[in-house]
């Protein structure tokens, strides 16, 4: 299935994961995997999600997550998984 990768990068703060997950839950996006690290106070998270049950158009989700990132003070990117698998897997 066509998966989506959401990355969140920025200064660590309380509630980043909660806010992103709330948005995803509200839009019927299922989170399948989360990995997260903090390097020198910087928050770095990657989520693998499934958007197939969401009724939100892809472009709308990209834009809204970007806005949400601005609100929290982090950079949120939402990209189809293929760009990464094609580049790093033979």
């Amino acid at each position: 299935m066509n998966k989506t990768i959401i990355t969140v990068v920025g200064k660590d703060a309380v509630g980043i994961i909660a806010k992103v997950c709330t948005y995803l839950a509200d839009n019927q996006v299922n989170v399948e995997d989360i990995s997260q690290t903090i390097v020198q106070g910087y928050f770095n998270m990657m989520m693998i999600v499934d958007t197939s049950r969401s009724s939100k158009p892809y472009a709308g989700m990209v834009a809204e997550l970007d806005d949400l990132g601005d609100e929290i003070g982090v950079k949120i990117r939402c990209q189809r998984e293929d760009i990464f698998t094609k580049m790093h897997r033979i």
Partner: protein
Amino acid sequence: MVTILEVNETNKMIEQEKLDVRTITLGISLLDCCDADLDALNRNIYDKITRLAKDLVSTGREIELEYGIPIVNKRISVTPIALVGGRACRSPEDFVEVAKTLDKAARDTGVNFLGGYSAIVSKGMTPTDEALIRSIPAALSSTERVCSSVNIGSTKTGINMDAVKLMGEIVRETAEATKENNSLGCTKLVVFCNAPDDNPFMAGAFHGVSEGDAVINVGVSGPGVIKNALEGVRGENFEVLCETVKRTAFKVTRAGQLVAQEASERLGIPFGIVDLSLAPTPSVGDSVAGILEEMGLESAGAPGTTAALALLNDQVKKGGIMASSFVGGLSGAFIPVSEDRGMIDAVNRGALTLEKLEAMTCVCSVGLDMIAIPGDTSASTISGIIADEAAIGMINHKTTAVRLIPVIGKDVGDTVEFGGLLGYAPVQQVNRFGCADFINRGGRIPAPIHSFKN
């Protein structure tokens, strides 16, 4: 499953190292638009282009958004117009009308350039070919987005020296016709030897007659990505250096392949090729000269530059070929001067001359590109430079091209601004000794002995 490290690596390439898909180019055959009536021809051309390309720009934006990779340009290439306009166009003025139609179609579909105002005259010129070529100055000065190219030689046919002579004059006339604008017309005019049918990059793109009705070709870039990867292997031997370029080129091409397949599927138009060319831009960190300097040269143009470029060009091809089954176009490293900040700096510090650039074109993917020369350079000197470059291409079985801008009213020491991706260039010294008697001989240079393989 992809890892966070891989995701971060890709996003770093995009955000910090300026990895992008430089162009999605939709190739369109206009052979079925031919008509004996000029108005009907123009109508057919306009209708076919706007029909096939109506979703090109929006589809490009959609892909850009979903994959988070910039797609800088959406463009169109068409069948060489000399072939399409033959029946209807009886004079250069008639061809200019076709150029205006192409310009309108480009504007209405939202693409920034449309290539294919071209003639293939590698062995001989028909009257129609000649009429198109003679119309180029007027066509390029009365349109905004149309790009023109003329193929004047090939390994199989030799060099058409009559066309070389004519093109020297046409380059000058185009410069004159656009002199109010720093002779900008010449930035949209390429003279080729061994022009490929499937090149997606402007200004030399056209949709060759060996192609189908419509095709999607994609050009990927990423000099910054290669430079950054090389920063990690400073001081290592050539094996490590080559391996690093190859691996990085592989990754970059895979991104291009993905975008090409997506675009092809969404537009319902077959995928042609991925052209992996390191195409620099004037912005910081997006320079081919920067890669050469990272390899250990004090400046691009220093001794060792040709070897460094040969290595780069070859490894880029090797990485690219592994990544996509259909690599085509020009694939390699471009060395335009005005579009590459490192090249501009090298010229300004006196490290890079026109003669060194010519040597570099023996091993790069194209030729003498985006070089500003004094406005009083004679037509025969320009023809001489074209002939030299074509000879390199013909003998070495490679594409070579010349895109010189004799900037009217400017001389060595001046800098000329072309704007946007076209950048700016210091006017470079040209050898002042004449070659008019050589150029004026007329006729053809025969094909080289090693072209006879039948």
